[in-house]
């Protein structure tokens, strides 16, 4: 179907930058138009790349949360917190096509779980910090967070150029 979504967004961006921005009077409207130009590029890149990237991210995070759960089951104190460290084995929602909203919702649930897990693991560091398994897990968490930022770079680095406001 042409123009496709990305072509439509490209045309909006091009028209805005070349036809609208130069005609905007100085002041708050010009300042906002700079912000809009940057955000249109950002939106275009997200439309192209975010869905696949988030699905990939969720997969990596789900595996990580399962390893955290596995570690927690071996620790008397953490084991009691079943909700926090329960396995997260399957993607949410029906099989087949999964829209961006659904993948985003899943990412939100998984990332809340990760935040809480990090807080709990930090709280037991004095007791568990010398264990190789604990240290390895913490490194895996940091590696995942790094990967998350690398994925986000796909719609950040090329989007924000020129004056922002």
């Amino acid at each position, binding site marked *: 179907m042409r123009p496709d979504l990305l072509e439509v967004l490209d045309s909006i961006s091009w028209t805005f930058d070349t036809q609208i921005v130069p005609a905007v009077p100085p*002041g*708050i409207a*010009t*300042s*906002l138009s700079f*912000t*809009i130009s*940057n*955000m249109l590029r*950002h939106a275009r890149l997200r439309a192209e790349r975010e869905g696949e990237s988030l699905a990939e991210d969720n997969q990596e995070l789900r595996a990580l949360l399962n390893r955290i759960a596995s570690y927690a089951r071996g620790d008397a104190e953490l084991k009691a917190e079943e909700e926090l460290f329960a396995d997260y084995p399957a993607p949410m929602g029906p099989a087949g096509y999964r829209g961006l909203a659904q993948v985003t919702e899943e990412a*939100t649930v998984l*990332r*809340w779980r*990760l*935040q809480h897990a*990090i*807080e709990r693991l*930090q709280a037991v*560091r004095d007791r568990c910090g010398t264990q190789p398994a604990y240290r390895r897990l913490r490194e895996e*968490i*940091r590696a995942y*967070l*790094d990967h*998350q*930022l690398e994925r*986000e770079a796909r719609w*950040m680095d090329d*989007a*924000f150029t020129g004056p*922002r*406001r």
Partner: protein
Amino acid sequence: MGQITPEFLEAYLAEKWREGVKVEKLERFARGISRETWFIDIRRAGSAVESLILRRDLDGNSIGTATLRFEYEVYHRLQGSGVPVAEVLWWEEDPRWVADGRPFYLRRQVDGRWDVPNYGDRDPAYDNLRVEIGREHVRKLAIIHGCDWRALGFGDLLPAPADESQCAAVAIERAYDDLARFQFSPLPIIAEVREWLLDNAPRASRISLLKGTNGLGEEVFRDGVIVAMSDWEQASIGDPASDFARAQEFFQDVVIDGRRVWGLDEALDYYAEVSGVRIDSSSVQYYRVLTGVENTITLHHGAKPLAEGSSPSVRLSWLATEAIYGGHRRMMDAVTGRMQLTDRPRSASLVELKAS
């Protein structure tokens, strides 16, 4: 009041001053992000033009976690302190004047400009200008850091560290307590970096009043001199290194004939000269990370209206994406060891991360 109009202001000021007031100019500041700022020129009968500034929250929310009242109280306490700030006139929350529920305050506008002509021109002809502006900013930071914050009443307004070893811990607790009040989506990197911040907290050279956001865009200049310092909503009491970590643009490197003549190291040397207090650059590097956390939390707060659909400003969208992303990268560089505290700190830029 919902709309700021000449008629509204004339009625308000006439009641305050008990004489007729004519508004000659009314303009909303274009670049402001955290709150609404209005520039107002007025004239009373037989008097010269007086310039005022009105500040109030954005409709729906303020980006900052500090209240507008806090901002007013900081200005109020700094009157006569030696720190150059505008004179504050009135805090207003009377329902007769704030029908839409948004209090405001008025202060006098200090004659000057927030930008420095030619400062951003990379022509070597302006290298000395950049050095002189940087030195002027250091002098003013030294005045803030040297003021008696207890005598000025800041101890009633802000949490104060018990001693120099507690400065970072107080700032961390304040930031994470703020986040706990309003967090609406997960921030696992913010959770992860907390441990690094506590493990690496430096001892402060002294306990000072801190400006928070500072540097280019935050101060008012006239003839190369800072005549007013504004944007105090991130003021705190703590380690002066934090203000160097937050300084925008003024400590960027200036290289003349292949030799660096200005930069963060030189700014810290000059600060030691004018204040008698030495700040270690590793502390500045540390506070660059903590500042990233504080700004991310502030911007997370600012983004809440987007999630609630109450104030979908593109400015909020931008801040909640690019600025938070930049802060997250800096935090992960710290916790993974890619950034070391012994590395030479990179001076903050205006574009990089600004929460106000």
